[in-house]
């Protein structure tokens, strides 16, 4: 099972500054392990961020995103206590969803 994400959402005026840190190897399919075997492709393909259940960002990624990916975004019209939920799906079909509340700065 995958590790939980770290999500921080802080309010700046009526805009929530959201920072997400996911834990994922993001293998490019080009790296070789100690035995000279190619490590197969394994990366997050899709990330969906919702604000109180409504999608605000729908991202499609390639293997070029760094290991343990960071994603930052801004959500307009947010209030303290609003729910920010993040779901990622990788190329092996693994999924993970985590949630955080917007905090006043």
């Amino acid at each position, binding site marked *: 099972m995958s590790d939980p994400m770290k999500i921080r959402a802080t309010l700046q005026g009526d805009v929530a500054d959201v920072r997400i840190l996911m834990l994922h190897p993001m293998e490019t399919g*080009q790296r070789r392990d100690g035995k000279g075997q190619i490590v197969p492709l394994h990366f997050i393909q899709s990330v969906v961020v919702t604000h109180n259940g409504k999608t605000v960002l729908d991202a499609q*990624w390639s293997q*070029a995103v760094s290991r343990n990916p960071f994603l930052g975004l801004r959500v307009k019209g947010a209030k303290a206590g609003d729910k920010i939920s993040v779901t990622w799906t990788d190329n092996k079909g693994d999924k993970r969803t985590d949630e955080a509340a917007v905090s006043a700065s």
Partner: protein
Amino acid sequence: MNSTRRSLLRLAGSAGTLAVAGMAGLLRSAATWAATWNKAGFESKAVAEVLKSLGATDAAESKDIAITAPDIAENGAVVPVAVTSRIPNTQQISIVAEKNPFPLAATFEMAGGGEGYVSTRLKMGQTSDVWAVVKAGGRYYVAKKEVKITVGGCG
């Protein structure tokens, strides 16, 4: 004795049906998901093909797109890149690392309260231009910024 054999067969039969139904469900979800992931774009090996897959071949250069990335990145495995679009109604931002084996790194679609801003970290194989392709109001705009890489991060 005969009756136990019958019930066992029945059990096996129903388990089989369930397994088939489960498989069909899996296949369906995989198909819908593949429709949204831009396979052609992510497997392109040249920027021109990437632009074509996005439908952005006639993109105009814009000064309203800001790419925040280091001029020199020592570690190509972690290059922080942020794109801010001040173009009204920004719907989509794509980030392209020109000289990567597969240039298209990510596409972000904004909806609802999502602002024209994203920040992430990329792997870059060598020094090259980073492109931001922005879709706003049905039109495409681009901006570029060169990032020098000391140690490549694709291996």
